[in-house]
């Protein structure tokens, strides 16, 4: 027979006002197995906890039920109290009499009845609770950072400076990310490359950072403290160990007309190239889709069509036969910092929920560009050497219209969220434009100005007051080509008038979206994501850089639109989480996980199919002579997160989820 103690909390007046706590305590006290039942003003207070501890010891209780607030609030508190009195903490459960009863009902009689029922469920359930002990798992104290933009760089440097090894994986041939494309940064207008490149070099030279550029995560196995990550090292066609970055190959490549991704298509590059001069690592890559030699090979031409780069390479580093290779790394934590891409207004969209802008000609008007393209025009290292010139005819635009919220905050285009950085960078663009084209006129169409941040609103004011940008509150309904100019039809909601502007160039502040392929990566990591593909944090307020997969952390714009300071702050936060995790050799885990009954498991592996974590493994049972008896399921304790889908799926109920076993639920249902 159980020896259960029941403790009903009044929570001051919070529960007591609508629930007759004394009657609840009395009524639950009458249940078989309950040997002690009291009510008290504040159970969570010190004297309240003392009450519980004393009762456990004096009455030799083997289970306690605290009828109080939500277990999300105080389960930890009461389990700790139970543990300090020598009771296994998992023999303590809570009945939620506040959030789920007193706060939502008015009729005292009905509320009291319901409170008794809720208490009864838990009393019956706890009769089947078993003492559980915390699980310890070893931690591999090395981290993987995915993405070499500013967030990934910051996270890698912080972790490495904290004394732990880091593997930094970047899918492009150089780290630096979008920040390396920017001209100046708000709100201080300091040169983006000037502040970024030293950090990139630091990454390359740090003894604790292993940089794997031009690489992608192929698969992730394992669990917190024990991930095995398979990384694809894409074939550069250049031997990294031999190349010294002299640049001769690039100089001699005959194909010089390829639109440069780094310059957002506004400049050109060669087929063997480094994306920009400050690239880290400074090792070229051959774009096989554009290279004459590889195109010849793909067409089946026997003759070697080109090979100039290999001829001029003094170190014999060019390797046309290089293949993708794979490395497997063991790490204990993963930081995802894959960043963003810009929404494109074209007709075909990556996701079904998105729509393009037919009213802006679906992006067919050449002098309608996006924010990143403008950055490249304004950048001293850009295709125009920092001169603002139109892509169509190279003329200097005398009037530029900037449109904010392109895609963003527009459910009709499928993007409801605010992209956060656009208000600021548009203000920056108007300033840069004003500095470079003194007689130019900048007009901005905006919905609201969102300039929350240190020095941000002041910055926008400067754009308006000192750089004389004309800010019009309203949307633009149509962009059309009218000879040499772009006809911008909009509406100024403050004057209540339609506006038509003939602009020389239009810059769209298009929405920030997660990188393509994010869903596939999220699935490899078992991290959930929203409809747009932004990765979900574990808690929007209290666990903003963690994910629901233990050991996987988020930094930067992969989680939601972020500016540089936010991304860097998040990156440092993930680093502190990772270092905190690595401060111990063994990791504690709640033991609420599934286990398989070897006797009755038939090995149909329905559980294996439904397990979201791949925690179910196959185990062969043999007799003493080594003959196979059967193959059954076994749960990897480190991987299982305790969702219990396996148990509901198992036809013979040969899996039990500790903490929510069938007997516990059955007992609760029986108490209806």
């Amino acid at each position, binding site marked *: 027979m159980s020896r259960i103690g029941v403790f009903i909390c009044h929570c001051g007046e919070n529960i007591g006002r609508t629930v007759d706590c004394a009657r609840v305590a009395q009524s639950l006290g009458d249940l078989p197995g309950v040997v002690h039942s009291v009510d008290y003003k504040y159970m969570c207070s010190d004297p309240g906890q003392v009450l519980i501890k004393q009762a456990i010891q004096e009455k030799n209780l083997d289970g306690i039920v605290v009828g109080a607030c939500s277990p999300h609030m105080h389960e930890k508190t009461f389990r700790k109290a139970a543990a300090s009195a020598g009771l296994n903490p998992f023999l303590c459960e809570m009945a939620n009499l506040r959030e789920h009863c007193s706060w939502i009902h008015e009729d005292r009689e009905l509320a009291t009845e319901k409170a008794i029922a809720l208490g009864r469920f838990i009393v019956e359930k706890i009769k089947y609770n078993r003492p559980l002990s915390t699980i310890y798992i070893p931690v591999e104290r090395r981290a993987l950072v995915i993405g070499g933009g500013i967030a990934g760089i910051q996270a890698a440097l912080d972790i490495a400076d904290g004394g732990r090894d880091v593997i930094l994986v970047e899918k492009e041939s150089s780290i630096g990310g979008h920040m390396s494309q920017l001209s100046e940064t708000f709100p201080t207008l300091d040169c983006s490359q000037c502040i970024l490149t030293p950090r990139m070099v630091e990454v390359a030279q740090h003894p604790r950072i292993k940089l794997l550029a031009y690489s992608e995560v192929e698969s992730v196995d394992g669990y917190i403290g024990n991930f095995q990550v398979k990384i694809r090292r894409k074939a550069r066609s250049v031997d990294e160990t031999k190349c010294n970055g002299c640049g001769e190959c690039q100089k001699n490549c005959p194909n010089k007309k390829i639109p440069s991704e780094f310059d957002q298509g506004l400049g050109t590059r060669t087929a063997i190239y480094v994306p920009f001069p400050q690239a880290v690592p400074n090792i070229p890559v051959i774009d096989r889709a554009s290279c004459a030699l590889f195109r010849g090979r793909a067409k089946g031409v026997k003759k070697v069509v080109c090979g100039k780069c290999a001829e001029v390479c003094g170190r014999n580093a060019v390797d046309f036969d290089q293949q993708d290779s794979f490395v497997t790394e063991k790490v204990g934590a993963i930081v995802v910092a894959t960043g963003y891409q810009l929404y494109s207004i074209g007709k075909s969209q990556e996701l079904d929920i998105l729509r393009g802008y037919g009213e802006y000609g679906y992006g067919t008007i050449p002098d309608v560009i996006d924010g990143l393209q403008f950055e490249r025009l304004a950048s001293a290292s850009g295709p125009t050497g920092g001169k603002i010139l139109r892509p169509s005819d190279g003329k200097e635009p005398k009037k530029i219209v900037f449109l904010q919220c392109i895609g963003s905050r527009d459910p009709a285009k499928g993007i409801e969220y605010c992209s956060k950085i656009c208000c600021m960078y548009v203000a920056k663009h108007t300033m840069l434009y004003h500095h470079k084209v003194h007689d130019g006129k900048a007009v901005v169409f905006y919905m609201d100005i969102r300039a929350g941040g240190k020095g941000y609103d002041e910055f926008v004011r400067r754009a308006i007051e000192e750089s004389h940008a004309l800010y019009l509150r309203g949307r633009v309904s149509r962009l059309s080509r009218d000879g040499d100019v772009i006809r911008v039809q909009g509406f100024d909601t403050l004057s209540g008038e339609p506006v038509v502007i003939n602009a020389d160039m239009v810059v769209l502040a298009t929405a920030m979206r997660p990188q393509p392929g994010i869903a596939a990566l999220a699935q490899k990591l078992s991290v959930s994501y929203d409809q747009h593909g932004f990765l979900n944090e574990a808690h929007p307020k209290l666990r903003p850089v963690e994910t629901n997969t233990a050991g996987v952390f988020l930094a930067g714009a992969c989680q939601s639109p972020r500016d540089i300071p936010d991304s860097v702050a998040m990156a440092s936060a993930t680093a502190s989480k990772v270092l905190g995790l690595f401060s111990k050799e063994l990791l504690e885990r709640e033991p609420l996980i599934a286990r398989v009954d070897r*006797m*009755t*498991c*038939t*090995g*149909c*592996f*329905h559980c294996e*199919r*439904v397990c979201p974590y791949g925690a179910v493994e196959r185990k062969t049972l043999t007799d003493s002579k080594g003959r196979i008896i*059967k*193959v059954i399921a076994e749960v990897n304790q480190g991987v299982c997160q305790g969702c219990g889908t396996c148990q509901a*799926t198992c*036809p*013979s*109920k*040969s899996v039990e989820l500790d903490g929510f076993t*069938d*007997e516990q639920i*059955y*007992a609760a249902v029986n108490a209806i």
Partner: protein
Amino acid sequence: MQELRDLAKKLLLDKQVNAILGYEWDRRGARPAFITEAGDCDRLVFDHRCVQNLAAYLSPRRANIAQLGRLAVVIKACDARAVAGLIRENQLKREDLVLIGVRCGGVVVNPSDSEQLNAENIAPRCVGCEQREPTLADHLVGETQSAPVGKANRDLRLSEIEKLNPEERLSLWTSLLSQCTRCYACRQVCPMCFCERCIADKTQPAWIESSPHSRGNFSWHLTRALHLAGRCVDCGECERACPAGIPLGLLNHKVARIVASRYGYAVSDDPSRETPIGSYRLDDEQEFIA
């Protein structure tokens, strides 16, 4: 029939298998037969009275059969789906079996039924069956068969029941299921019911009450049908075996239709084809969820 016997003989003589599991005549029609000697192969028969699903003998619950070693089994298309199911669910290895597929144009309900197959006595499940021969088989014997024709219409019966109001349906099923004595013949004969310890026999806790009264019977039969969702091969054995004559096939057929209409899934004899329960699509219909 000679083709079948010759093949069986050859398999035994070439030591490809240790035994043949097939059918033979007895005074009440056809019955399962285990043949281990080549000389006995002439006992093997197949026609429309061979209703039993021999895949049931392949279930790992029958350890004594596993001891025979490599087996050849005579299978109809529906039986092949059960073999595929057992392979899919890791209860069998394909390489441990030689499958002798027989072309089938429908069977009667009971092995002792008439020697002639006609539209009256054909098993309702065979009406509308589209598979004449099992694709999973290693060998295929028998003459080409035409699609079975019959008067029975299970879909019509289902829609009659669906037309009743909920209360009428509940009383109908309560009354039908109240006949159940919980002999579990339906379970024992089912090739896909291979759990070592059935949920109905689990006592801690006893989700399904074990005494034969309406309440427990209701839980048992609904649960049984659910466990067969996307897995039932429609061999009709449960209904044939039921001594109380409960139309269990209707429940299975209903579930099969639900799965077909919601997930476009028809049970298949391809072991690599994923079953719908245990997988999901992000855009599965969820009209019933508020």
